[in-house]
């Protein structure tokens, strides 16, 4: 992009003033005095001024305090502040209507007040510096927005490599469908193929679901709960869990049930997603063949806790806060950084929460709180 070199401020950044006064004579004098230096637009009532502001951008709004209209100067400027907070507001008073001015300043409605009769050079200086302030503030805001946008892009870049890996694997799995018709014709048994295909589709759906949460408009996780026996539900999840290669390489994976029967209202599929995620993370952090992951159910008066403990290295301090945010991963290219952020949303949708604690003897415990 090439930048034009201009001698003065660019056209769109010209000093521009909206001057409001109910005395036609004052409007004429003001315009005649300043139009050589700044763009002047005038209005003879608060109502007209607001109508003009809706159509155009005014860095500076100057209003007379006393106006015949039902809206006086400070009331107008209060409205301007609410709707166009960046415009620099000034109040003009014919006499030292001190109470009104002090009130307006205290409310933060005006940046400056000017007493009549104004002195040409003074007022011009004031208007020009106010315009500069306006454009600087505007520029600052734009830069901040650009910076935020850039940071977001960087975050997306981080997650993309993980995502591509994930998608490529799913595509590889789904490609098994290409040959199925041929296999069927030959009378081959395709039961296993279909299983693999279903697994791929499921993985894809999970990926879409977790990404949806971080796309625009998404945000809420919907849970449809039903009351279940928690130990039994988790016992069933273990079957699925043991299929994961990370979990397979554990030395031990066990469930320590609660002495009493614990029934809670949960969305079993969603809670399964959380437990699978946390157990997989835990298993991945341990040394192959030496890892142990324990799932314990602990019952309290108002809540039930599921505590998942591993004997890995624990969570390193720089990750403590970030693991709950999306797009952060300690697993390099292996993780999309969506897992735990997703878990948090699911637990919160249950009215519960998720937390973790590094253990002094190594490893860490993730605790899922589920309200009864």
């Amino acid at each position, binding site marked *: 992009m090439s930048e034009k070199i201009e001698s003065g401020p660019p056209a769109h950044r010209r000093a521009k003033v909206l001057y409001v006064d109910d005395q036609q004579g004052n409007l004429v004098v003001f315009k005649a005095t300043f139009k050589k230096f700044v763009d002047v637009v005038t209005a003879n009532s608060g109502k007209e001024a607001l109508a003009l502001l809706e159509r155009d951008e005014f860095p500076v709004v100057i209003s007379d305090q006393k106006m015949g209209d039902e809206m006086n100067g400070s009331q107008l400027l209060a409205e301007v502040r609410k709707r166009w907070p960046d415009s620099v507001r000034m109040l003009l008073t014919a006499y030292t209507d001190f109470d009104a001015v002090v009130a307006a300043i205290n409310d933060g409605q005006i940046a400056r007040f000017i007493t009549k009769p104004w002195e040409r050079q003074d007022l011009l200086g004031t208007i020009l510096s106010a315009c500069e302030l306006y454009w600087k503030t505007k520029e600052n805001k734009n830069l901040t927005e650009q910076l935020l946008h850039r940071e977001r892009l960087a975050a997306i870049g981080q997650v993309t*490599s993980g995502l591509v890996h994930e998608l490529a694997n799913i595509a590889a799995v789904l490609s*098994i469908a290409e040959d199925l018709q041929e296999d069927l014709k030959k009378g081959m048994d395709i039961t296993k193929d279909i299983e693999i295909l279903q697994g791929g589709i499921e993985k894809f759906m999970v990926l879409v679901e977790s990404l949806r949460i971080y796309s625009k408009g998404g945000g809420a996780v919907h849970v449809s709960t039903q009351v279940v026996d928690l130990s039994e539900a988790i016992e069933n999840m273990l079957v699925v869990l043991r299929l994961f290669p990370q979990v397979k390489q554990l030395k031990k994976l066990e469930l320590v049930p609660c002495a009493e029967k614990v029934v809670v209202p949960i969305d079993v599929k969603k809670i399964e997603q959380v437990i699978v995620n946390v157990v997989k993370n835990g298993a991945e952090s341990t040394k192959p063949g030496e890892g142990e992951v324990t799932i314990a159910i602990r019952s309290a008066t108002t809540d039930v806790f599921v505590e998942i403990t591993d004997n890995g290295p624990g969570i390193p301090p720089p990750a403590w806060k970030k693991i709950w945010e999306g797009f952060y991963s300690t697993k390099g290219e292996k993780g999309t950084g969506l897992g735990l952020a997703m878990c948090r949303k699911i637990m919160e949708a249950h009215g519960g929460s998720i937390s973790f604690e590094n253990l002094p003897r190594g490893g860490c415990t993730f605790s899922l709180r589920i309200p009864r």
Partner: protein
Amino acid sequence: MNDDKKILIVDDDPAVLFVACKKVRAAGWDAIAAVDGLDAVRKLLEHPRCRRMITDFVMPAFGGDAWIRFLERFCSEWTIVVASTEDVDPGQFVCMPKPLDFENVLHVFSREIR
């Protein structure tokens, strides 16, 4: 010329591994599956005449750059296709993007090799 019809396939994702083995077998080759670099070392010792391999790059146990450097040093006379979604340095081997186009892969293996 290598008349051994075996291809060693290495991938940590069991579903991807299953699909790859199936495609390779359908084309008339013998597929030997390995779940990561370590398992692959075990398998290549069990099949001393095997000289062809399809391997994933990112794997939890013995993958990545170290795995490729290992193959360069100890399997330099092999024909190896490295499958990856990222820019990797495949060394002397063939690098192909994931998901693999098996026709292309098998074309690489059908060429006469030393």
